[in-house]
């Protein structure tokens, strides 16, 4: 009844091409944005920021980045953890070397550096595909972690091999370090998440995205119709690396404040982000958010219900959490192999017809 195209006349090409063609969707989107920027910052405390919002926003960026590579361009990557580490260490080196420059630019430049590294490790994709490419990117994962562990220059020769984020401010308000108010870290990450999502959404709707999808669907056919696979694949790696790098930089500087590469950016991280993309939905920006929400928020929710609410022993709760999250993943993938995004799409189709489906 409310959710429909009928009656919403588009009179220009701009209108016709907008991201949310349905009025209801558009307003919902504005409401979410207003809530995220103007309401939530006033309601936050340290727990909500550090346990819920920051991981959700940061993993969303990583999932968007990986979704471009895996979901849109069809290049399987297991190197996400390593590429996040590149972003984190680039950000650390920049923060320490140029303290007078805003952290905002450091994060963006870290993304750029990660894009370059990602392109470098994307070169094998020109010759190999599928599982073989996954193994090549797995090599990137292990190599990068080894590199950051091994070469003292990256962690400024600190005794423990840890990197620590010094306090940096934006407009005079601390966003990194321990003294920052919760809303500043949240807003800082939110700005990046929204910007990344908008950029990714528009890239994937445009020529670049269509080229990626052509390569994904059938690379030989794509080449025949004039898509340059070298350019298409490497741009996918670059854009993906850019987003993943930003998420790594934020993960280190704003969220954790101190990381050691093996623990924070190990192979588990690569799998976690890949699962987010698969559960959320390959080839969907909404799916990246949904997948990140599912894998970040669900464990926290379960823990709070089982330990905080029901008062169960923590070890039992932790084991149950693994089982519940694991079985939900299986259930979701059997019920809807195209991920949460597909559920959302189906719901929207149904909504269009509601309440007169025939």
């Amino acid at each position, binding site marked *: 009844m409310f959710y429909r195209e009928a009656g919403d006349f588009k009179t220009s090409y701009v209108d016709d091409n907008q991201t949310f063609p349905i009025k209801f969707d558009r307003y919902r989107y504005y409401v979410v944005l207003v809530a995220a920027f103007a309401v939530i910052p006033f309601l936050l405390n*340290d*727990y909500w920021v*550090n*346990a*819920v919002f920051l*991981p959700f926003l940061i993993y969303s960026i990583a999932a968007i980045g990986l979704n471009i590579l895996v979901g849109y361009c069809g290049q399987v990557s297991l190197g996400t953890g390593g590429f996040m580490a590149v972003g984190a260490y680039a950000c650390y080196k920049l923060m320490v070397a140029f303290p007078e420059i805003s952290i905002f630019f450091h994060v963006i430049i870290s993304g750029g550096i990660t894009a370059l590294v990602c392109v470098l490790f994307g070169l094998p994709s020109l010759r190999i595909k599928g599982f073989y490419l996954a193994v090549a990117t797995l090599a990137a994962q292990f190599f990068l972690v080894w590199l950051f*562990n091994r070469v003292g220059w990256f962690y400024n020769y600190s*005794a*423990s*091999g*840890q990197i*620590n984020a*010094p*306090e940096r401010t934006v407009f005079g308000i601390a966003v990194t*370090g*321990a*003294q920052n108010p919760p809303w500043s870290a949240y807003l800082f990450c939110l700005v990046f998440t929204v910007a990344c999502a908008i950029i990714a959404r528009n890239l994937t709707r445009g020529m670049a995205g269509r080229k990626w999808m052509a390569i994904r669907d059938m690379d030989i056919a794509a080449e025949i119709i004039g898509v340059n696979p070298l350019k298409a694949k490497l741009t996918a790696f670059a854009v993906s690396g850019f987003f993943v790098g930003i998420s790594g930089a934020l993960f280190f500087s704003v*969220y*954790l*404040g*101190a*990381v*050691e590469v*093996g*623990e*924070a950016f*190990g192979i588990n991280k690569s799998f976690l982000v890949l699962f987010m993309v698969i559960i959320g939905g390959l080839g969907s920006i909404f799916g990246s958010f*949904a997948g990140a*929400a599912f894998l970040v*928020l*669900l464990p*926290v*929710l379960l*823990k*709070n*219900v089982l*330990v*905080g*609410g029901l008062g169960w*022993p*923590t*070890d039992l*709760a*932790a*084991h149950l959490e*693994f089982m519940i999250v694991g079985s939900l993943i299986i259930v979701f993938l059997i019920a809807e192999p195209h991920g*949460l995004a597909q559920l959302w799409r189906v719901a929207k189709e149904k909504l269009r017809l509601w309440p007169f489906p025939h």
Partner: protein
Amino acid sequence: MKQKLMATALAAALMAGPALADLTIIDTSYRTGPYAANGIPFSDGYQDYFTLLNARDGGIGGEKINLVECETGYNTEKGVECYEATKGAGNGALIYQPLSTGITYQLIPKASADGIPLHTMGYGRTSAKNGGVFEWVFNYPANYWDGASHAITHILDQNGGDISGKKISLIYHNSAYGKEPIRTLEELSAKHGFELVLLPVDHPGQEQKSQWLQIRRDRPDYVIMWGWGVMNQVAIQEAVNIRFPMENFIGIWWSGSENDVKAAGPAANGYKALTFHNLGRDYPVYADIQKHVVDAGKAAGAGDQVGSVLYNRGMYAAMLAAEAIKTAQEMHGVSAINAAQLRDGMENLEMTEAKMTALGLPGFGPEFKVSCENHGGNGYGAVSQWDAAAGEFKLITDYFQSDQEIISKLVAEDSAAFAAENGITPRC
């Protein structure tokens, strides 16, 4: 939509927090994952001691202790989540004992900003010994650099004081934890003229074939280990496999629990590990624990760890926290102290033989006195050895002090660097 639903449910779950009590102690434990074998006994000991105080003495100074457990899985992200979730529990968390060097590094700035003391007993950031810079962090009675020095001193004693030309390998967990002793060992290697070989093992440490192959090829005179969790068991098994002489294999105190050696069977006999407290359960306090905690069915976990090395360590940590609370109560004249008052108590804590005897733990740990300049104790430790037939670790040396000359220099250097990075003016 989904997100909003989850947020609502989360909010509902958070409302039903733990019951209010006067002294809130947080146990950030790990009973799951590759480090659980070591996390469980420590946490059991830590909790049982507070349960004992509640049951026997009615708390500390008349105030009941509210113990809140939070599972970290030795994972830094979960550790942060735990910290944020528990720091406001009850009347506010009094003290954290993260039992993870990685989580400690995360919590040092956060806890300092929030004004909650951290006690990182025998782990964490070594230079936190300098209390002038690290106001809220305590690592008494001993730290990693002390441990490194203890191992070398023990080797020196075995060799009549001369180890020049000897080859010593360090097999370590490739993380902040395992890397901590390297700088000290390098200094000691320059001083005593031994050759140091570094062998990192990546998390979680199940794969060590290549490192032990290298040890077999290099034939080092001694191997020192900085391992934790499953890495310990694997390393000791590998050492057995290559028939490395066990008495030349020395682990840090975190690599010396029964769980680590039992898997390798009788062949692990003779394995050495450092310790900064006594072992076994021949102490009067254990009778009380048995009576008030275990027999009363209040023991934490399965209750089967009482008297093991790491249980003792957890209990020791709880005892030091309880003594610091007592000190703070005396200093401030209130029984319901807050975190800032506990910090004062920790900074003025003095452990004497008389005090430990009164607690039913005669001679259990070294005597030390904490001060603003020294948050780390005096660096006393001893060497224990695994007796496979008896199934227990036995002390084979007296307590001896680490090489303070080298360590105090390194502590001053590292803490000065931290102070400069973070714009801290030392308090003393």
